[in-house]
């Protein structure tokens, strides 16, 4: 169901406040990169803003947002291939840097789908069916990816 312009803006703002953390974290999981994830999250919500007058707000919007995030991340990777652009940028305050470097290295041993499946089901609260939709995988493949991810992380010491 579409809604009136003032109402669709209100719905958008609600979705932004509710879903931005999940979209950002999903993007971090996919890219293993904090700064790229910020851009991807903003871009994802820009797409939602553009479609605010036509989207069916009575249906959950979170799955749509995660699918868009994954597609944007994939498109960006394909487009850049061997990117030629930016040096490093600020990600964390000083206290968080060491911890992030450690966890990023560990997660770097996982594939993008393994990271995203693990994070989606253990931290974002998605069911395997919901994660499967976001990741374009079968629920069984999501479970297998989570299992592989755990095995890799446990053996990375």
């Amino acid at each position, binding site marked *: 169901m579409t809604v009136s312009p003032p109402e669709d803006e209100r719905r958008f703002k609600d979705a932004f406040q509710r879903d931005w*953390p999940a979209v950002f974290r999903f993007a971090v999981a996919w890219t293993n990169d904090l700064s*790229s994830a910020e851009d991807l999250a*903003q871009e994802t919500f*820009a797409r939602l803003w553009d479609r605010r007058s036509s989207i069916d707000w009575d249906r959950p919007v979170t799955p749509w947002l995660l699918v868009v995030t994954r597609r944007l991340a994939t498109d960006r990777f394909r487009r*850049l291939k*061997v990117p030629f652009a930016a040096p*490093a940028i600020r990600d*964390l305050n000083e206290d968080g840097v060491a911890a992030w470097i450690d966890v990023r290295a560990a*997660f770097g041993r996982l594939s993008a789908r393994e990271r995203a499946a693990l994070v989606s089901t253990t931290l974002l609260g998605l069911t395997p069916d919901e994660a499967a939709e976001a990741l374009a995988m079968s629920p069984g493949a999501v479970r297998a990816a989570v299992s592989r991810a755990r095995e890799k992380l446990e053996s990375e010491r």
Partner: protein
Amino acid sequence: MSSQRTRTDELLETWMAATARPIPNFREGSASRRRPRRSFILVLAVIALILLALGTLAIGALVQRRSDSVPSAELAHSAVAAIADAPGVRFTLKISTHSGDGISSTDASGLIDFARGRFSGTADGGSGGGSMSLFGGPTSGGVIVADGLFVQTEGGPWVAVPDGNPQLQAFLDPVRLSRALEAVVDSSAVDPAIRSKPCGAETCRVISLSAPPAVLLDAEASMLGVDSQPPPADFGPTAIELLIDPSGFPVRMDVTLEAGSTTTPIGLELARLDPVPTISPPIP
């Protein structure tokens, strides 16, 4: 009954804490249109490196001959010749970005063999982490251009990229570089005064230039064949300070890119190489 805490649990907890962020304000438009400043500044930093690494060779050679004012037209002509003549350089680059978000840094070093069109460089995102896409990224890596393009990511194995990278190949094209450099020098304000400054145990001569934003933007487009984003409205002229040792060689260059409250100082140290060490493919 208590469940045993696993390594995965620890990592997930750390990951969750590291990704905890305040929800930003949403601004309409695409992310690339909304956040031009950071990406624009960083791209310019890389472009400035490329241009100035070459430009310093030309300017240094010129100052060795003349100690009075330096006409920009003469600089440009000298630059073209210097690019063709320079065997190669070893470079050490430090880029840091100071903004309201904090400080980020990148350290890079490598070799450029102009004669054979080869490049070898490694870089580390340093304490800031984040994208390191020029050198293979995402946070550290390497690039070798030698009979093909090879990329190393995060200390992993070298990987051949079969299709190459048109932008990187363009970067190693001396004709394209010389034209871009000529445009930059022609359009920059060169301070006729040559100052002195200590550099190590010696005294270096110092040349100051100021490059307008549009010039660097045009250089980026012409060198890389890409459509540039419009610069931030508050992006100011780029100040360049060049230190030249008594032999006439440019040993250090400092560049400062500024846009509003964001400042990006770039420090580049150069050593002329003749002959240039062989840059070989990392894998057969």
